[in-house]
C-alpha cells in the first residue's frame, strides 16, 4: 500500500460518498429521485458489491445468492415482530443469520468449483425458495410474504400506543421515505469502503490468485478453501444486510426474493456493470432497477407527453415506435440492452467508461486490442 494509492482510495471514497448522498438531486431529472427507488438503488448496490467480492475476486459464480437476501429479510422481519421496531437488531440479525447460512451452504458448495459450484448454490437456493413458498409457511407466510401485525409481541418495545402498524425506526426516527434512503446510503458507503479495503488487502490478492490459477496455489501448499469460504461468507453477509435493509424500508419478506430469477438478477447486475470492478456492480444494479421501475411505468399517455414537443405526426410516429419497448415491453428493452452491452463492451459498463476516459487522454495512440480488454477492465477499479 503506497501512500499514493491510499490517497487515491481516499479520493474515491470521498467522491463516492458525495455521489451517493446527493443521489436525490442528480437523479431527479431522469425521474428516479423518489424514496423507494433510491432505497432500491442502495440496497441492490450493497447486494451487488457483496456478490462481486465472491464472483469478481475469486471467479466463483454463485447462482443462489438470493437465498441470503431472503434469509436476511425474514430474519429482520422476525426481529421486528418479536423484539423491537428498532432497526439495529434487525440489521444485525439479518446479516448474522445470513452469515450462518452462508457458512453452511458455502462449506458444502465450495467442495466443487466451476459450473458444479454454480449448480450446487442454485440447488440450495431453489430448495429454500420452494420450502419457503409452501411447507415453511408458518415461518415465512408463504406466497403472501411475512408481514407485521399489530399483535406481534415485540418484547422490547413499550406497549404500542400508536394506532395502526408500527413503523421501523432508528431510536425514534422513522425509517420510511427519505430517512430510510439515507440509512441505506450510509450502510452502502460503509459496505463500499469495506469492499475497497478487501480489494486492496493481501486477502483480496490471495482471492485473485485463486481466480487466476487455483491449481498452482494448491500445489504450493496453500490451502485455498478457508479463503474461499471467507469470501463466500462475507458476500453472503452483504446479501443478508441487503435483505434486512429491504425489510427495514418495507417490512415485508416474500419467498420470491429467493427464487433463481432473483439470484440471476444479481449475476446480471454484476456482469452488466463490470465483473471485478469496484463500482461496476453498483451501476449494473442501478440500471436494472431503473428499467424495472421507470421503463415499466411508461404508457402511451406518458409517451405522448414526452414527445409532445414534436409536430403531431412525428409525435404519433415516435409513440408508435417506442411503445413496444416500454410499459409491458420493458423486458424486451432490458434483454436487448444486455446483448448490446456485452457484445460491444465485454467488460460491462465500466469498460465503456474506461474507453470513454481513454478517448480523452493521451493513451489514445495505443490501440485497444480486444483480448485483454476484459482483463484490463477487471483490474481497473475506480
Amino acid at each position: 500500500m503506497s501512500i499514493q494509492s491510499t490517497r487515491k482510495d481516499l479520493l474515491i471514497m470521498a467522491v463516492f460518498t458525495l455521489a451517493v448522498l446527493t443521489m436525490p438531486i442528480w437523479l431527479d431529472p431522469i425521474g428516479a429521485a423518489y424514496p423507494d427507488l433510491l432505497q432500491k438503488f442502495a440496497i441492490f448496490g450493497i447486494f451487488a458489491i457483496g456478490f462481486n467480492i465472491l464472483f469478481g475476486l475469486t471467479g466463483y459464480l454463485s447462482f443462489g445468492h438470493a437465498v441470503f437476501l431472503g434469509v436476511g429479510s425474514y430474519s429482520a422481519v422476525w426481529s421486528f415482530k418479536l423484539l423491537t421496531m428498532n432497526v439495529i437488531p434487525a440489521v444485525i440479525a439479518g446479516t448474522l443469520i445470513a452469515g450462518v447460512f452462508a457458512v453452511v451452504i458455502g462449506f458444502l458448495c465450495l467442495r466443487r468449483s466451476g459450473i458444479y459450484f454454480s449448480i450446487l448454490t442454485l440447488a440450495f437456493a431453489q430448495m429454500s425458495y420452494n420450502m419457503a413458498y409452501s411447507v415453511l409457511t408458518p415461518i415465512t407466510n408463504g406466497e403472501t410474504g411475512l408481514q407485521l401485525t399489530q399483535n406481534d409481541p415485540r418484547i422490547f418495545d413499550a406497549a404500542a400506543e400508536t394506532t395502526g402498524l408500527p413503523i421501523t425506526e432508528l431510536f425514534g426516527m422513522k425509517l420510511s421515505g427519505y430517512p430510510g434512503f439515507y440509512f441505506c446510503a450510509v450502510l452502502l458507503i460503509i459496505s463500499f469502503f469495506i469492499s475497497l479495503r478487501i480489494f486492496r488487502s493481501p486477502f483480496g490478492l490471495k482471492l485473485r490468485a485463486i481466480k487466476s490459477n487455483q491449481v498452482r496455489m494448491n500445489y504450493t501448499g496453500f490451502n485455498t478453501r478457508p479463503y474461499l469460504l471467507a469470501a463466500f461468507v462475507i458476500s453472503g453477509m452483504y446479501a443478508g444486510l441487503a435483505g434486512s435493509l429491504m425489510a427495514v424500508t418495507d417490512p415485508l419478506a416474500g419467498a420470491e426474493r429467493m427464487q433463481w430469477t432473483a439470484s440471476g438478477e444479481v449475476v446480471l447486475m454484476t456482469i452488466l456493470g463490470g465483473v471485478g470492478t469496484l463500482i461496476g456492480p453498483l451501476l449494473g444494479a442501478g440500471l436494472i432497477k431503473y428499467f424495472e421501475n421507470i421503463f415499466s411505468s411508461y404508457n402511451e399517455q406518458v409517451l405522448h407527453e414526452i414527445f409532445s414537443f414534436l409536430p403531431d405526426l412525428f409525435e404519433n410516429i415516435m409513440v408508435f415506435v417506442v411503445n413496444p419497448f416500454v410499459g409491458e415491453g420493458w423486458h424486451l428493452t432490458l434483454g436487448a440492452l444486455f446483448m448490446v452491452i456485452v457484445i460491444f463492451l465485454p467488460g460491462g459498463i465500466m469498460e465503456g467508461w474506461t474507453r470513454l476516459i481513454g478517448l480523452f487522454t493521451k493513451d489514445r495512440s495505443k490501440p485497444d486490442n480486444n483480448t485483454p480488454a476484459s482483463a484490463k477492465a477487471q483490474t481497473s477499479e475506480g
Partner: protein
Amino acid sequence: MSDISRGKSGGVSRRSVLKAGAASGLVLATPTIFSSKAHAAGFRNDPGAAKSVTFGFNVPQTGAYADEGADELRAYKLAVKHINGEGDGGMLNTMKPLSLKGNGVLGKKVEYVTGDTQTKSDAARASAKRMIEKDGALMITGGSSSGVAVAVQGLCQEMGTIFMAGLTHSNDTTGKDKKRYGFRHFFNAYMSGAALGPVLEKEYGKERRAYHLTADYTWGWTQEESIKNTTEALGWQTVNTVRTPVGAGDFSQYITPVLNSGADVLILNHYGKDMINSLTQAVQFGLRDKQVNGKQFEIVVPLFSRLMAQGAGPNIKGILGTTNWNWSLTDAGSQAFVKSFGAEYGFPPSMAAHTCYVQALLYANACEMAGTFNPIPVIKALEGFKFDGMGNGATEYRASDHQCFKSVLVVRGNENPTSQFDLLDVVQEVPRSQVEYDPAIFGGELGPYEVAM
C-alpha cells in the same frame, strides 16, 4: 414527519426530544426540491387546487398473468374515460345510486399512471410505492393474484392510500389480512364453495367421493378448505387432498394416483397456468371417460375465467366452476359495460376487466359522495355502500370486512360455443343470501382509519 398522531401521551420525554431533533436534522438535510412534494396537507397526495387527480393502475404486465393484466388496464382506461365524461358513459348510465357527474371527480379530471406487478409481492409493492411517492397517486388498484393483493394492501394501509383490489380470490384478502384501506369487489373462495354446493348436489348427487389437487400456497389452501367444507356438508366424502407445487408444469405424477383411488370427482384448486395444465392432463389421462362406483367421473374447477377456458381449449367443455362475472349476462349494467368495452376494443371484457372497471368507478363515486379525496371520509362512504346496476345485481360493500356481497355465477364450459368468445355457460346466478357468511369466521382486523405518516 409530524408527530401529531403519537402525541397523546403528553409531556416531553427524552425519547421524543431525541426524535424531534433527529427529525428536524433530517428535514434540514433533505434537499429543498422535495418540499413541494411533502405532504403538508392532512392526507397523502392531497390534490389541493390541482386540476387533476391521479389513479395508480398496478397490473401484471409481464409473467403468466400478463394477458389478464392487459385486460385490466383496458378496463381502467375505459373507466377513466367514462368518469371524465368521454365515450358513451358505460356503467355511469346504469349505476345506482350515482354521485358522479361525468366531469371527473369533484370537478377534477382523472389521470392515471401504470405499473407492472410482475405477479410478485416485492415488485408490486415497489410499483405501488412509485405511484404513491413519485406520481402522487391517490388510489392504487389492480392485480391478478391474492399474494400481490395482500402485499399491496398492507403497503397501502401503511401509506394511508386506498387500495381497490383487482382479481383476488383468497379468503385472506378480506379475512385474516383485511385492512381498513383495502377493498375487494371480487368474490372469494368461500363464496365459490357456497355457490357451487347446491349445484354440485343437483348435478352429481349426494354420494360422491372427492379428490383434491391443490396449488401449494395460501390461495389454494383457502379454496380447498372452503370447497371441502361445502362438499362434506352435502354428504360427500373427501378421499384425499394433495398439494402440488406451483408451476409444476407436468402434473402426471399427481393425477395418476387419482385413477385408482376410488374417487369419482376430481377438484382442481388451481388457477391460471397450473389449472390449464392440470385440467388438460387430467382429461388426457381419461378421467372424464371413467366410470367409478357406477357413476360418471367428474372434474370440478371451482374458480375459472374465460381466459383460462381459452387456454384449456376443448378440455373445459362441461366442467363446472364459478366466476365473478361473464360478458354474456343480460342485465343493464353488464350490457352497458360490454357495449362500451366492445366498441372500444372489439372483443368482450374478461371478469378481471369487469371487477377492475367497477372498482375504479366505485372509488371515484365514493370520493364524489364524500365531497373530498381525504381517504378517511372516502372509506366511510364505501363502507356499507349499497349499489346496483354494475353487473352483479344488488351489491353491498360490507363495512365489517370491506368485501362486496353480491350474486355469484356458477358456470359450465360451453359444449357448443357459437363464437370464439362464447366459452362459458351460466348455469345459475346464486343469490347473495346464499353465499353470505359471518365476517368473524376468518378473523383479522381492519385496523385504524388514521395512519401515521
